[in-house]
């Protein structure tokens, strides 16, 4: 067990000022490509044992942020503390040891599992790498994990293609769980699944969280599911967080027009409430060409003159909420 993380008030993960810029394809031999600001200054705190939801349309930078948080990629700027410890400063053996503590579950259970490895080898890999068990004990742990995620131990000797989408996602969960992580980043874990199977996986993740005191960052483009599982919801647009609110408040009273648009555009599951929905017009802008001022202004129903020119800052609104929008001037 990690010794350095005993204080329960220390967040499981804290990201400050995280940026990830890419260089787009070169326009010509002499003109370098545009800078793609995939993640552009994100502050995010994952309190221990909590679930923070991260929503936004495709292309707004959610997966890039996830990859940076688990150090699959290095940020262009910013800092990340894992259990109070500077995660980005870790190298070599210390980094290898700490990697165990933060794991990821991917959207696509088809492409994120190696088709040539048995389920047992896939799940056992992390156990071996992190020397959590050896010899026959690895197999026993794999069997126990499979049963914990609702599969039979016999699944161990099968290959990914022999399973349905929901079952493959259970395998992905078992793989993440195998190394006894503290934080799990679930990047659209249910987006590719049927609604009925989504509920199975969401329930499973909830059970595991209480059993193992896990901290989750739950990423999705669907506010409905995020709102259901999260304590806090962060809404991301063009690489920036535009609203951060407790889950029960964000649905009742979304502050940012983008949040309101996302809520309004989700199908209502209630035939009596249909129609008159204000879908958000247009598409997410290319991150190589973010509109000036407020990045949302070309799609915003409440746009004002100031929005077109000056980018709003993330400001506090009450004790628990933050919003990046000129409708809420600082100090108001």
């Amino acid at each position, binding site marked *: 067990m990690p010794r350095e993380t005993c204080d329960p008030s220390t967040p499981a993960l804290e990201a400050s000022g995280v940026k990830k810029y890419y260089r787009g394809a070169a326009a010509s031999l002499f003109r370098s490509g545009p800078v793609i600001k995939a993640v552009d200054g994100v502050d995010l705190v994952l309190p221990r044992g909590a679930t923070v939801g991260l929503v936004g349309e495709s292309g707004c930078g959610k997966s890039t942020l996830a990859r940076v948080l688990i150090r699959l990629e290095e940020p262009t700027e910013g800092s990340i503390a894992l259990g109070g410890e500077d995660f980005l400063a870790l190298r070599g053996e210390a980094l290898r040891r700490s990697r165990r503590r933060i794991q990821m579950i991917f959207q696509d259970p088809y492409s994120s599992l190696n088709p040539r490895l048995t389920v047992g080898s896939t799940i056992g890999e992390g156990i071996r790498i992190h020397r959590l068990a050896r010899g026959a004990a690895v197999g026993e742990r794999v069997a126990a994990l499979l049963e914990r995620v609702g599969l039979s131990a016999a699944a161990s000797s099968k290959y990914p293609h022999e399973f349905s989408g929901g079952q493959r996602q259970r395998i992905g969960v078992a793989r993440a769980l195998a190394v006894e992580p503290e934080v799990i980043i679930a990047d659209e874990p249910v987006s590719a699944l049927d609604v009925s199977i989504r509920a199975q996986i969401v329930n499973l993740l909830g059970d595991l969280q209480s059993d193992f005191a896990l901290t989750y960052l739950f990423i999705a483009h669907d506010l409905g599911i995020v709102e*259901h599982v999260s304590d806090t919801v962060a809404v991301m647009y063009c690489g920036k967080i535009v609203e951060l609110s407790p889950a029960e408040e964000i649905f009742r009273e979304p502050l940012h027009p983008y949040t309101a648009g*996302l809520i309004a555009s989700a199908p209502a*599951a209630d035939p009596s409430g249909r129609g008159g929905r204000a879908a958000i017009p247009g598409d997410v802008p290319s991150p190589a060409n973010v509109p000036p001022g407020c990045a949302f202004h070309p799609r915003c129903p409440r746009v004002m003159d100031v929005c077109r020119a000056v980018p709003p800052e993330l400001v506090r609104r009450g004790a628990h909420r933050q919003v990046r929008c000129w409708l809420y001037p600082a100090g108001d």
Partner: protein
Amino acid sequence: MTASAAARVRNGMAMDALLSVENLVTVLDTDRGTARAVDGVSFRIGRGETLGLVGESGCGKTMTALSIMRLLPERIGRVESGSIVFEGRDLLRLPEKEMRAVRGNKISIVFQEPLTSLNPVFTCGEQVREAIALHKKLSRAASKERAIEMLRLVRIPEPEKRYHAYPHQMSGGMRQRVMIAMALSCEPPLVIADEPTSALDVSVQGQIIELLRELRERLRMAVLLITHDLAVVAEMADRVVVMYAGAVFEEAPVGDLFARPSHPYTEGLIGSLARPDRRGGRLAAIPGNVPDPMRLPPGCRFSDRCARRFERCTLSEPPLFAVSAEHRARCWLRETGEGGDRGAAGNV
């Protein structure tokens, strides 16, 4: 309700039915044997009506749609029995040449993944123009003009310019708009939309549903809306057919289905939707998976996943019982009481 009242309703529905699928059985010859992907499905769609066809992946929804279009996977799929009557003609008996005049012109289909349905080497505009030229004798200039008009109708910004864009240069939502433009270009009386929004972001889903709703009114088309997501059905269907493991499990007007789901499977589908008023609690997931059509459980094909199973369920398969005039459910729980008129429930 009396048997004659039920019969009136059915006759009424039959009279203005645009499409009437009766006892459709579609089989797939796989290397493991023959699977009944569609196992005795019946439903009707009236002119201008939107019928939702819902069920989890693998329930046979796409095979039902492909049977109607006569586009089943070659050498693997074939319709074994049943009839598909559209505007008075059984499509299953039409020569292929006449069927080609139906496809795109009278019935068209929009698939889930626009990127794989569009040809990557032609511009989007050209593909819409082709779809028009296939059925309408128009000059090149006139068909191009009509294609641009269609792109404008599906709200593609700057349609004259976007006419020349290739599929990969467009977002997923824009590509789905192009697919819809192609499908609607001949103003067919029936459009089949097979998971039209399932691959899209929620925000874009909303846009596409809004668009389909508007165009449906404007062009007075009937829609067969296929989806695994009951929320999408709630947004635009008039009536709903719930399908499971190749069979119709429940059929009802959309309001009725949500207010009084009469099949445990439908209840499960509704319960698994995340809703703000049930935040944090467990979602009512349906345990297990859709069975392989070659390995159905005995009796009711849902019996291995059903929390309300009783003895009878594994002994024999329930027929569709009438719950009310327009509402039917295939579950032994519906056998007793007013709805227990098995004669009125009729077929199977």
